[in-house]
């Protein structure tokens, strides 16, 4: 590991100007990703600016009835928060489905969004990887990629984004708030992660050296009836092969609102807008749920060894929506059963 300077800050302004002033300086939050990657030689900051003493750890209600999650609130604190559990249950479930109790006590909201991919080649500096070393090639494209992307990839990178938390946040139209030396700004999570293109090393729309201060989740009645379901290779403490965050609001048998996002399938949480619009405004039946799931995965382009994810994603969408429809007492046409989730060890979120 390269030597580095360390400093703790209590003022946002100091944190920003320190990172601006020192080349190679980085913010340190929980450290669960950054310290790990420093050990692997993937990251080599010259200075760590510890942001955990900034007053950004709060979780509060916004004036419109939504939520403001402070950037340094721990994953544990967000998952246990009564407002989160009552109004956005899929968010609590997604966080609890990720990592371990110890790691969630350390990991933060901002760090979770900015964690890097778990592609094994990315973590190994002896292998070519466009994300880590632009222009060196993508080892996963023709290599071990059974857990890589089926949507939105390019030949430059086929990695997935590993965050569980970001999946329901995407479904709920969350907005990332940040601070720079030139003033504050915000970007919707749906535009936060950049398309892969030919520069997979450029991952987010966050301005250079900006500090995430909060994630704002708008009020949404539908989110009160939401679920997160994650399929992985063991029952707990593993990253998703595919996951789904879904919310469904049914009134008089008609879908008033629906939210759907997938994890583990692309370089960013995948908002399933095709399936959403196929369902919105119409009756909730088994046939329509099934057709919506088919529609969403029709655009998938699996790699040599991950075609199983297409089936899995399709069946997960169907299963979670069917469950939600059943619990709202609105399912008809045999939709009330528990759909098959496909291959793989499964654990409910």
């Amino acid at each position: 590991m390269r030597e580095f300077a360390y400093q703790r800050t209590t003022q946002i302004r100091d944190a920003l100007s320190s990172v601006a002033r020192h080349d190679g300086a980085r913010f340190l939050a929980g450290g669960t990703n950054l310290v790990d990657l420093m050990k692997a030689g993937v990251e080599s900051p010259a200075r760590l600016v510890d942001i955990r003493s900034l007053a950004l750890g709060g979780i509060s209600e916004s004036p419109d009835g939504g939520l403001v999650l402070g950037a340094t609130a721990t994953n544990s604190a967000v998952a246990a928060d009564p407002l989160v559990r009552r109004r956005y249950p899929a968010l609590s479930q997604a966080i609890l489905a990720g990592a371990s109790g110890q790691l969630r006590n350390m990991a933060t909201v901002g760090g979770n969004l900015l964690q890097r991919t778990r592609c094994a080649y990315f973590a190994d500096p002896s292998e070519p990887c466009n994300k880590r070393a632009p222009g060196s090639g993508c080892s996963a494209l023709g290599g071990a990629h059974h857990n890589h992307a089926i949507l939105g990839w390019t030949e430059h990178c086929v990695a997935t984004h590993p965050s569980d938390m970001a999946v329901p946040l995407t479904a709920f139209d969350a907005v990332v708030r940040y601070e720079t030396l030139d003033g504050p700004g915000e970007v919707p999570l749906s535009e936060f992660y950049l398309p892969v293109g030919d520069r997979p090393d450029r991952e987010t729309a966050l301005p250079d050296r900006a500090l995430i201060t909060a994630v704002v989740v708008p009020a949404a009645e539908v989110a009160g009836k939401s679920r997160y379901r994650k399929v992985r290779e063991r029952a707990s403490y593993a990253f998703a092969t595919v996951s789904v965050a879904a919310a469904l609001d049914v009134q008089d048998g008609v879908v008033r609102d629906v939210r759907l996002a997938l994890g583990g399938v692309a370089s960013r949480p995948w908002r399933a807008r095709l399936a959403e619009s196929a369902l919105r405004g119409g009756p909730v039946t088994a046939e329509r749920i099934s057709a919506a799931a088919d529609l969403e995965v029709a655009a998938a382009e699996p790699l040599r060894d991950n075609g199983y994810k297409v089936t899995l994603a399709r069946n997960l969408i169907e299963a979670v929506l069917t469950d939600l429809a059943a619990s709202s007492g609105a399912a008809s046409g045999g939709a009330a059963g528990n759909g098959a989730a496909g291959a793989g060890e499964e654990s409910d979120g």
Partner: protein
Amino acid sequence: MTDDTRSDISLRVNDATYQLAVDNRRTLLDALRDDLSLTGTKKGCDHGQCGACTVLLDGDRVVSCLTLAVVADGADVTTIEGLAGGGELRPIQEAFIRLDGFQCGFCTPGQICSAVGMLAEHAAGWPSAVTRDDSPERTPELSEEEVRERMSGNLCRCGAYPSIVRAILETSVREAVSK
């Protein structure tokens, strides 16, 4: 080596205060083991994946292999050496011994520190991924399934899981009775 790559820190470990000069790269795990000779805390994977290095940092369970020592400056650390007080084992330690909660023992300090943190999280009403009624009004009952999920960050190569779960469940029942 320039000066700003090292730091003078103060760690409170098991109620004793230590002043240390550390390289900023030092993890809390290495500081405990190599600088303070508190070798009860184990290094398994060194990447946050096994839980062997679990300690309590200001009361919360964390992995000390991904915690920099300099980050713990001023914090309260409890390791396996600090759990027993006045020559008496904690109920959880005693239960691990009586119910065979280990074979080789390598994962045990991490399991026990993790269990102490986990029981406090449960007592605070935190849900887990297997909590079915996750409404905030109810404290979930601590079933075997709950213990397995909440302890999934601690691996045991010997597969002593059934007796680890038993020791933890028994301790939680006893603590509930003695309240």
